[in-house]
């Protein structure tokens, strides 16, 4: 029985991270049909926000307040990632609705840019970037209207951005001569996010030893799930989101501002990625590659769970969590010591974390053969338009 509890808890612990990481992706994919490859990088932004908040607490605020920095980081990370997501939606994704494969490629491009951005960003870089963007916008504002209705307008548009871009680079290079401006904010190195003391220990519940960080993440997951569920089911905007999901054209006709709904959905999905980013700082490394470590797992969860149902996401994540744990820790061997030789060899072969991953992914691929639309498929005429 101990083993059972242990397995359940550890599976839950692994699964809850997956739920939290995949939740935002599931919301966006389920409601908008958009696979956001930059989801992992939005998580990374959340983690970097945590780092900044932690440093502010360390540097400015009294020591007594340090333990709660993580609680402050949660809403801030939501805001930062959410706003980044909003920007992404307004500039890129909006133009690609109905072209899911193109969206996938474009968001992958965004993810590369975000990764390199946190590696490269320094004060000089940031100032140069801001100058370039602001100048680019101002050029369009302060030039004669007539210029923008000419044959050569596209060239002017592109050209003005190239020029302002170069101005930005020049400014950044000049500033970069000064060491103050040249210092990268984060650099390519992993950064050190230290959990507050109360999240570093563990609690013994009966025979199971539960790390506090894990419990915190499980609680956070439950809260996030409840909030998202409440928002989608009970609030006005949630209702609108659901309406748009079911019938975009009809909702448009009924006066639902579908563009705002899309933006809002994306903001929430991205914000949730930020929250997940805070959570994973408790478990692992924080660096530019953070997103890549989680993104594929998130996809698996979403695909396995099926589209549009939170329950599917939760079940899929927990399923993957428990399966990875059972296979990876080889605990089957303990339950059934007298198993046949061949089976024993197979299980031992897969009982390393590395090979467990192979098996779990392979099982997902096989499972999708039986249930191509995931655990909770959409039914009815809508499925294949």
């Amino acid at each position: 029985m101990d083993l059972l509890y242990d397995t359940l808890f550890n599976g839950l612990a692994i699964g809850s991270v997956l739920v939290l990481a995949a939740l935002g992706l599931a919301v966006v994919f389920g409601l908008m049909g958009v696979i956001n490859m930059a989801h992992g990088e939005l998580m990374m932004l959340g983690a970097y926000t945590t780092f900044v908040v932690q440093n502010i607490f360390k540097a400015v605020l009294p020591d007594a307040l340090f333990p709660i920095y993580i609680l402050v980081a949660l809403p801030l990370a939501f805001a930062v990632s959410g706003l980044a997501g909003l920007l992404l939606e307004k500039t890129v994704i909006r133009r690609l609705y109905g072209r899911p494969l193109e969206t996938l490629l474009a968001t992958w491009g965004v993810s590369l840019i975000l990764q390199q951005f946190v590696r490269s960003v320094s004060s000089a870089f940031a100032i140069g970037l801001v100058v370039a963007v602001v100048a680019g916008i101002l050029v369009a504002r302060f030039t004669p209207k007539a210029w923008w209705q000419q044959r050569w307008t596209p060239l002017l548009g592109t050209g003005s951005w190239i020029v302002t871009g170069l101005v930005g680079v020049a400014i950044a290079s000049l500033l970069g001569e000064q060491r103050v401006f040249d210092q990268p904010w984060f650099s390519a190195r992993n950064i050190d996010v230290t959990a507050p003391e109360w999240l570093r220990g563990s609690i013994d519940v009966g025979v199971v030893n539960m790390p506090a960080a894990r419990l915190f993440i499980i609680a956070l997951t439950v809260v996030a799930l409840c909030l998202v569920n409440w928002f989608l089911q009970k609030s006005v905007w949630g209702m609108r989101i659901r309406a748009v999901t079911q019938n975009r054209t009809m909702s448009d006709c009924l006066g639902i501002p579908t563009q705002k709904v899309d933006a809002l959905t994306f903001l929430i999905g991205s914000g949730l990625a930020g929250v997940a980013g805070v959570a994973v700082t408790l478990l692992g490394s924080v660096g530019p590659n953070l997103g890549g470590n989680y993104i594929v797992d998130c996809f698996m969860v979403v695909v396995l769970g099926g589209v549009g149902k939170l329950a599917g996401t939760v079940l899929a994540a927990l399923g993957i969590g428990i399966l990875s744990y059972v296979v990876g820790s080889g605990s089957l061997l303990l339950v059934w010591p007298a198993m046949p030789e061949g089976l024993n060899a197979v299980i031992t072969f897969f009982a390393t974390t590395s090979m467990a991953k192979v098996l779990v992914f392979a099982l997902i691929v096989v499972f999708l053969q039986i249930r191509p639309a995931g655990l909770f498929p959409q039914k009815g005429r809508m499925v294949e338009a």
Partner: protein
Amino acid sequence: MRKTSLRLLGGATALATSLSLVACGGGEKAGGDFDGEVKVGILHSRSGTMAISENTVAEAELMAIDEINAKGGITIDGKKLKIVPVEEDGASDWPTFAEKATKLIDQDKVAVVFGGWTSASRKAMLPVFEAKDHFLFYPIQYEGQECSKNIFYSGAAPNQQAEPAVDWLLKNKGKDFFLVGSDYVYPRTANTIMKEQLKANGGKVVGEDYLPLGNTEVAPIIAKIKQALPKGGVIVNTLNGDSNVAFFKQMKAAGITPANGYSIMSFSIAEEEIAAIGPEYLEGTYAAWNYFQSLDTPASKEFTKNFKAKYGDKRVTNDPAEAAYMMVYLWAAAAEKANSVDDNKVREALVGVSFDAPEGKVTVQPNHHVEKLVLIGEVQKDGMFKILENKGFVKPVAWNQYVPETKGFTCDWTQKRPDAGKYKM
């Protein structure tokens, strides 16, 4: 740092600026004090996952080059030559390392290449250097079982790091070992060696597990450790990069800590990694290296001081940086001794060359490795190591003597036999 930043900024509209920057970079000429120049290649990952670690190594190499140049470069045939580094990016991708190595040799005609970090990147470059009969200087502690005519290893062989560490653990900390590593060649091979060593010396391996590179979910491993070592024991950690952070954070949360009777020895965690993981999580764990920043010698202090002055106050030095720094000097010394920068002549001159490195006076051995100082340290609150044991200088052994397949084999490039790389003693 400044030049990199200039380049970074170029990224915003990189294509437009790249030309001008390349032009600037190419415009540098040998200064008036020099009679000529000699090009050397620096090939490390400046982008991708490994950039985290390899940047420091590249910086140490550049620092050594600058220092040598400041003292007048290297003297060949009575001419003072300036060392000009040609930097390339391996991009954390093994095939790219092979490509860039080819480029450095064929295109840039460098005299020597300093580069690599992961064993996989070295293995990818090895055939290039063998096919072109060129010379690679490799600065990282590695798994041994290799002795190439075309590679000089300035990092530790297993008998200069892993084996003494295991001996120390057996003597002081216990007989039950759990081995954790990243799923690639160094941890796999190092663990193979350690298993043989433990078998020979009365230790016992109670479990081992491997984590895919970049994986951050270590709950199954922790469960295995708890099953295998319920009351505490020895954990040998050869994880690489990101996984270490997850490993230590989650170990701490699960109560697998020095305070609860677990002795954790890591082979890939140096001062730099401690800063990134956070000393809170590592305090009280052990590491074995050939150099610690806390090593209290004038040469060591000088090295750290110069490094900080050049790259920033917050930076730390570590073993890989020291090995990288030292190998540039060793190459320069060998070139001066050979009175040529030709790789074949340098190779012959190299054996026996000495240098007063930060860790002490090191001498190149006939098997293209270096005799190195072996240190065991414990992580302190401030992120530095307290040196628990100094085993003195140890001669390198390339072919491992615990592993049955290589037992009795040795490598000696001063021998004129065709199988000098691996022959029965």
